């Protein structure tokens, strides 16, 4: 019973609510019990909010009785712990904010609340969305439900782990260099990094202004589309927020991919890719061809300079953290402190040159997207990293397939496309034109409907 409820889709959950087969209070109680039983081994949650959850669930129940048909009514969710929650501790995964209780709510949190969701609590994040917690840290890192000796990805680590473990039906994530898509890939779930400016960052702790994105994480593409809907739209509190009109993401999901052109970016994204991931990705392209898409190879040569994005990230992160680094260095995690301090060593000229490189990557990517509708690549070059490796201070920032789409701000969806021989999830990412989340979701949904990777569950 617990598994059936925990892993139901949002649409299934809504149908069972409306047939009176299940109630939001019942589902909330089942999930709270499941978290209590399983989370001590996973550490996905940093703060549980059972009283708030039950209050939300009772309110949703009342709305359902009145015939309210909003799709997210009574849907259990949780927020990455860099999303400010009014009256609820928001730690940023850091000792610096370990007891901070904001008096503001993030715009995303408010919008999900207004959509009728049930808030189960806050999910651990890598410290300040950047630093994996090392042993001895105030907060233990989340573990991967598919294999607890591996990281769940980061920085939205708790979000990925909680969804794979069936603790919630939706979670927020944030993505500065892959922090929604990486945990989605490593945990076998779905994550959408929307277009830069599509989803508000107001009330979300900053890592790097020009690269930060907020977005939803879920277990299916349709769930992601439903969760994205209220997040999309202008927010005057976020200076980067766009006035571009918002599409209905769920409506067009079933239109299939016949006639769509998918470009496989052959340079950059296949360097050092694990053969199992490459095989799974090519099989996914075969599936999309079979469904009627035209799949062709494309090139974005300037991506060779992608790693310069780190200069932007480090300089902006230092600008945000400089005062606290000076006044409370001891409250930053080991290694993360020195990574942030590295931002003080980026010169003004280097920051500007990195932005010029970024402009070139944006221009070339936009050119390619005039010839194809969607770009496809493996999400990560390798499956989930073992903790033993990730906890080596020298591990650093391995080359990643995800920053190119933070650089361009393109809407990008990560979704499962297979499993490794050791049982770890594999993933592909689909990137689209600015504000064309709908096409990216449509391709992802068509692929998902033709495969069964998203139905596999970790043994816990």
């Amino acid at each position, binding site marked *: 019973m617990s598994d059936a409820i925990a892993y139901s889709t949002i649409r299934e959950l809504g149908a069972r609510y409306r047939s009176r087969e299940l109630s939001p209070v019942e589902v909330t109680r089942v999930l709270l019990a499941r978290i209590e039983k399983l989370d001590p081994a996973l550490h996905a949650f940093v703060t549980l909010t059972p009283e708030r959850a039950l209050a939300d669930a009772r309110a949703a129940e009342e709305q359902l009785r009145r015939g309210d048909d909003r799709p997210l009514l009574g849907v259990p969710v949780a927020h990455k712990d860099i999303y400010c929650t009014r009256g609820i501790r928001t730690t940023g995964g850091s000792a610096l904010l370990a007891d901070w209780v904001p008096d503001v709510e993030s715009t995303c949190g408010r919008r999900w609340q207004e959509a009728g969701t049930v808030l189960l609590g806050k999910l651990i994040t890598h410290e300040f969305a950047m630093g994996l917690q090392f042993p001895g840290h105030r907060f233990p890192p989340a573990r991967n439900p598919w294999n607890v000796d591996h990281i769940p990805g980061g920085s939205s680590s708790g979000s990925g782990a909680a969804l794979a473990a069936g603790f919630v039906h939706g979670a927020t994530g944030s993505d500065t260099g892959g922090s929604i898509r990486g945990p989605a890939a490593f945990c076998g779930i779905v994550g959408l990094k929307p277009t830069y400016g599509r989803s508000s960052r107001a009330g979300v702790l900053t890592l790097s202004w020009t690269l930060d994105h907020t977005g939803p994480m879920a277990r299916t593409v349709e769930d992601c589309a439903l969760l994205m809907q209220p997040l999309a739209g202008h927010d005057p509190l976020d200076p980067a927020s766009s006035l571009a009109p918002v599409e209905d993401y769920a409506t067009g999901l079933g239109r299939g991919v016949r006639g769509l052109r998918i470009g496989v970016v052959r340079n950059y994204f296949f360097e050092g890719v694990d053969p199992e991931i490459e095989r799974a990705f090519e099989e996914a392209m075969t599936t999309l061809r079979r469904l009627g898409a035209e799949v062709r190879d494309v090139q974005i040569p300037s991506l*060779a*300079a*992608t*790693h*310069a*994005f*780190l*200069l932007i990230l*480090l300089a902006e992160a230092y600008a945000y953290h400089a005062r606290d680094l000076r006044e409370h260095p001891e409250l930053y995690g080991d*290694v993360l402190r*020195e*990574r942030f*301090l*590295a931002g*003080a*060593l*980026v010169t003004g*000229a*280097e920051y*500007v*040159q*990195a*932005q*010029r*490189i*970024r*402009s*070139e990557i944006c*221009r070339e990517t936009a050119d390619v997207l005039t010839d194809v509708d969607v770009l496809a690549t493996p999400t990560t070059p390798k499956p989930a990293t073992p903790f033993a490796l990730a906890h080596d*201070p*020298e591990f*650093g*920032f391995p080359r990643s397939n995800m920053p190119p789409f933070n650089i361009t701000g393109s809407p990008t969806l990560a979704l499962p496309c297979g499993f490794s021989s050791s049982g770890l999830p594999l993933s592909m990412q689909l990137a689209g034109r600015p504000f064309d989340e709908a096409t990216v979701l449509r391709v992802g949904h068509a692929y998902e409907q033709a495969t069964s990777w998203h139905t596999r569950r970790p043994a816990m």
Partner: protein
Amino acid sequence: MDAMDKPLELTLEELRDRIKAAGITIPENRLGMVRKLLSDALVPVRALDTRAAKTVEPAVRFRGGRHE
């Protein structure tokens, strides 16, 4: 030509100079990690021909007499 007129690799000596200029402290056992972090990120910037690269303008845009 390397427009920044420097080797692509960030040397430990240059790193120490930058730390001194920034007025910060980085423990000796983390210098290798920081050097690699910055060095990898600097490679594409140091390889850039800055005279051929496009500018990053415009920094501001106006519409109807107001900042866009």
